[in-house]
Structures are given as structure tokens and as C-alpha cells.
């Protein structure tokens, strides 16, 4: 029942809403066809980012794919928490780390060990629209623990104009979701892994812009 719900929500409603109304275009979508565990790493500009990734996944992978979201933002009221969990299967982590619960990395590793996939936005926050920010350490810690799990870098462009941080009205703009090839991490050590992944995401964007003769946004 839940699978059917996810199918309707993402493969029917979200997908056509994003591509027909908003104007989202997925490039190299076929790279998303693989089976979990996969770590999707993307830059973050908008709430639509998560939707755009989930809508492009194969239907049978959606119920076992978990976006990682901030507890202090999405969990600050019980209703919001429930909705987020119910609609996206999100793993809510505490950014402030003052609680004595399990560490965020441990929780993500548990999901990966059950062959579930994870969507991670290492920028931490959506930040200023359309500007790539510094990547946080979480992705490094995770890949350091599970270097055999493949990760897929994803670069999104334009979504920050559609629904940027702090805005409530959605305005259509042609946006791109550029999916990189699945790959395994080569570097070792948390910091090096972070910079490798950050470079992978950034170069997807640079490659896309140079191919289309666009200046950096």
C-alpha cells in the first residue's frame, strides 16, 4: 500500500508536476537505475531537490531511499516531523548534536547495511540560491565507514530560483538535474573524501555549463 502511494506520489504526480509545470530536465537519468545501497550526493538549493531525485528513481527503490534532513528544521513540530517521515522516509538528524542519541553516521550506516539508499546534501543548508557552499564532514565520515558503497554525485541548477530558501511562492523556471556516474570513493580519510565528493559534484556543474556555453551562475 505504501509502495503504491509512493509510486503515485513520485512517479506520477511529482514527476509530471516537476517536468511539465516547473520545467525540470533530468540529464543522464539512466545512472539512477542501480539498486541500493547507494549514496546520492547533491548540492542543495530548494525543497524541490529531494523531490527531483526521488521522482527520477526507479519505483521499487523509492520506499528504501532515505533523504537525510535536519531534525531542528523538519522535526520542530510533531506534525511536521510526521509528514516529513511519512512522505519521504527521511532520516532526521540533530544538527546540534547535544542529544545523547546514536550518532548520525551510525544511523546512516545502519540503513546502508540494510541495503537502503541515502540522499545527502552535504552543504547542510539550502543557503544562498544557486551558489555552491562548502561541504560538511558528514559525507566523509559516512564513506570512510563504508567505502564499498557506491555514491552518485548530482548537480542541480535552477531549482534555487523555483523555490529558494525563505520563499513560499513557487515560480516555474527551466532547471536541470545532472546525474553523474555511480562510483566508489578513492580517497581515504574524512577530509580527503569530502573534497573528492565536492569536486565530483562541482565538476558535473562545470562540465554542463561549458558544454552549453554558460557562464558560472
Amino acid at each position, binding site marked *: 500500500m505504501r509502495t503504491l502511494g509512493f509510486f503515485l506520489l513520485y512517479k506520477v504526480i511529482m514527476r509530471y508536476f516537476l517536468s511539465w509545470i516547473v520545467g525540470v530536465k533530468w540529464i543522464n537519468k539512466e545512472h539512477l537505475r542501480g539498486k541500493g545501497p547507494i549514496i546520492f550526493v547533491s548540492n542543495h538549493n530548494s525543497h524541490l531537490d529531494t523531490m527531483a531525485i526521488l521522482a527520477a528513481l526507479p519505483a521499487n527503490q523509492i520506499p528504501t531511499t532515505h533523504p537525510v534532513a535536519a531534525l531542528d528544521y523538519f522535526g520542530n513540530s510533531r506534525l511536521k516531523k510526521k509528514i516529513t517521515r511519512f512522505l519521504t522516509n527521511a532520516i532526521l538528524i540533530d544538527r546540534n548534536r547535544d542529544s545523547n542519541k546514536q550518532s548520525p553516521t551510525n544511523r546512516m550506516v545502519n540503513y546502508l547495511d540494510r541495503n537502503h539508499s541515502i540522499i545527502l546534501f552535504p552543504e547542510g543548508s539550502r543557503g544562498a540560491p544557486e551558489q555552491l557552499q562548502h561541504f560538511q564532514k558528514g559525507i566523509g565520515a559516512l564513506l570512510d565507514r563504508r567505502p564499498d558503497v557506491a555514491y552518485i554525485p548530482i548537480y542541480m541548477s535552477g531549482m534555487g530560483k523555483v523555490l*529558494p530558501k525563505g520563499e513560499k511562492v513557487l515560480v516555474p523556471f*527551466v532547471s536541470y538535474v545532472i546525474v553523474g556516474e555511480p562510483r566508489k570513493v578513492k580517497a581515504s580519510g574524512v577530509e580527503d573524501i569530502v573534497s573528492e565528493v565536492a569536486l565530483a559534484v562541482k565538476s558535473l556543474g562545470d562540465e554542463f555549463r561549458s558544454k552549453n556555453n*554558460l557562464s558560472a551562475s
Partner: protein
Amino acid sequence: MNYFFSSRFSENQEVITIISIILGVLVFATLLFYALGRFYPIPKINELKQRTRSWWVMATLFILATVLHPMISFVAFGLLSFVAFRELTSISKNIRPEDRKAIFWCYLAIPVQYFLAYKGYYNLFTIFIPIIMFVWIPFVLVVRGETVEISRSMSILPTQLMFTVFSISHLAYLLSLPELQGFNAGGRGLLLYIVFLTEMNDVFQFTWGSLLGKRKIVATVSPNKTWEGFLGGMLTTVLVSYFIRFLTPFSITESLVTGLLIACTGFVGDVIVSAIKRDNGRKDTGTIIPGHGGILDRIDSLAISAPIFFYWVYNLYYAV
């Protein structure tokens, strides 16, 4: 089924004739490029084949949107405006983050404009975007309060709205025109006439330009536009206009002038979009139509020829 098809469609001999001509042209082009590719391969043959395939899709959609119930036609043209406007604002590098709310109002203007066209409220239809939105958009920008480069946004947004929504909605308004005595094809005939002629004019100018083109008209904007292509295209368009004047209430002289008008305005629309693309560092406005680029790449000529043609025919025959 009767609900979807316009009741007069099957009786409308002229419309059936022009649809047969359109399909005939497509069959001819498909066979020609197939034969060329088979026996006499020229360099750009694959692009031409892809373009023809896209023409099939576009022609089918257009014919369906025209012969089905008028309600469907208005929704279809509204969607066309929507996608074109989205393409234009998305490639524009001068849009500021503060303009989002004004752009949202622009999107809201699309259904309003097409509703006015559907109802045939002529006066409101002609002033809604050029006057009301022209005032409303700058006001929304002012209320937002960010004045850095605001004058640029004030001019870009109404222009984009004019170019993609106001102009294209005139195609839809043709379907709301009242019936004329002794003119059987009606607004549907006029719609098929202007769209067929404008698109054929593009093709003619392209063909003549490819065959004979030497002297460039505006080299810095569009290197493919040559005097040979423009004049050759114009002559062919005038000729075709003469032969398909059964779709219009025009006399022979009027049909020749209309052909001339469409050739010139089509060219103007084409170079305007080329210049906008160049300014924003794009080759195409999008990737929606294989071989052609974006929607805007295809309707650029229509964006200028449609309103000009509309007021030309309106003032000749419909204004009392």
C-alpha cells in the same frame, strides 16, 4: 465524439484541403530526405531528417488543437505561451531573484489573457497585457522594494510577456472571430493560414539561404540570414499565399500583400529571438523539440507575424 470535434469541421471543405496540403508537404519532405540520404547523402541530412520527424509531431499536435473543440484549442495555445514564456525567462541572465513575485504574476496573466480571447472580449483582450500588466508588473517590483537594476526588470518582464503571451494569444483569438457572410473557412481557416504560411516562410528562407545564400543581412546576430534566403523565401511565400487564399476572405491583391507582410514580420521575429539568444550566450532556447531547439525557436516568427496578421485581417474585415 461530437463534443470534441467542432460541428462544422466535416462540412468545412477549406480546412480539410489545407490539412491535406500540410500532410502532403510532410510526406514529400520525408520521402525526399529519405531518398537523398539513400542515394545522394549531403552533409546535414540527418539533422534534416530529425527536423522533419519533429515537424510531423508539431503538425499533428497543431492540427488536433485546431480541429478539436475550441476549448481544447485555447488550452493548447495557452500551454504554448506558458512553455515559451518559461523558456524566455529561464534563459534570461538579467532576471534578479527579487523578480520572482512579478514573474508569478506574469504566469497568472496567461490564463486571464486566453480567457479574454475565448470570450471574445476584444477591448479588454487588446489592453490587458500592453496596458494593465505593463503597469502592474513594475508596481509589483516597486512594492518588493529592491531598486538595484529595477528598471531593467521593469522593461524585460513586460516585453517577455508581450512576446510570448500577448502575441501568441492572437492565434487563439482568431477562433473567436464572428462568422462572416460568404466566408466559409472562418477563424479556423485564418489560423491554419497564418501558422502554415509563417512556418513555411521559415522553411523557404532556410532552403533558399542554404542553396544560394551569400550576402549576410545581420552577420553579428544570425550568420544564416542572407538576402538571397530572405528574398527567395519572400517570393515563395507570396506565391503560396496566393494559392491558399481560399482560407481567407482576401482578394488577390490582399493575399499577395499578406504574403509579403508575413515574410517580413516572420523574418523580424526570427532575428529578434536570435539576438536575445546571443545576448544570453545560448544556441537554442531549449531542448524540447529534437533538431529545432526550444519552443521559442519554432514560434519566434509567429510571435511577430501573428499579431500583425490579426490586426491586418481584423481591420480589413471584422471592424465595423
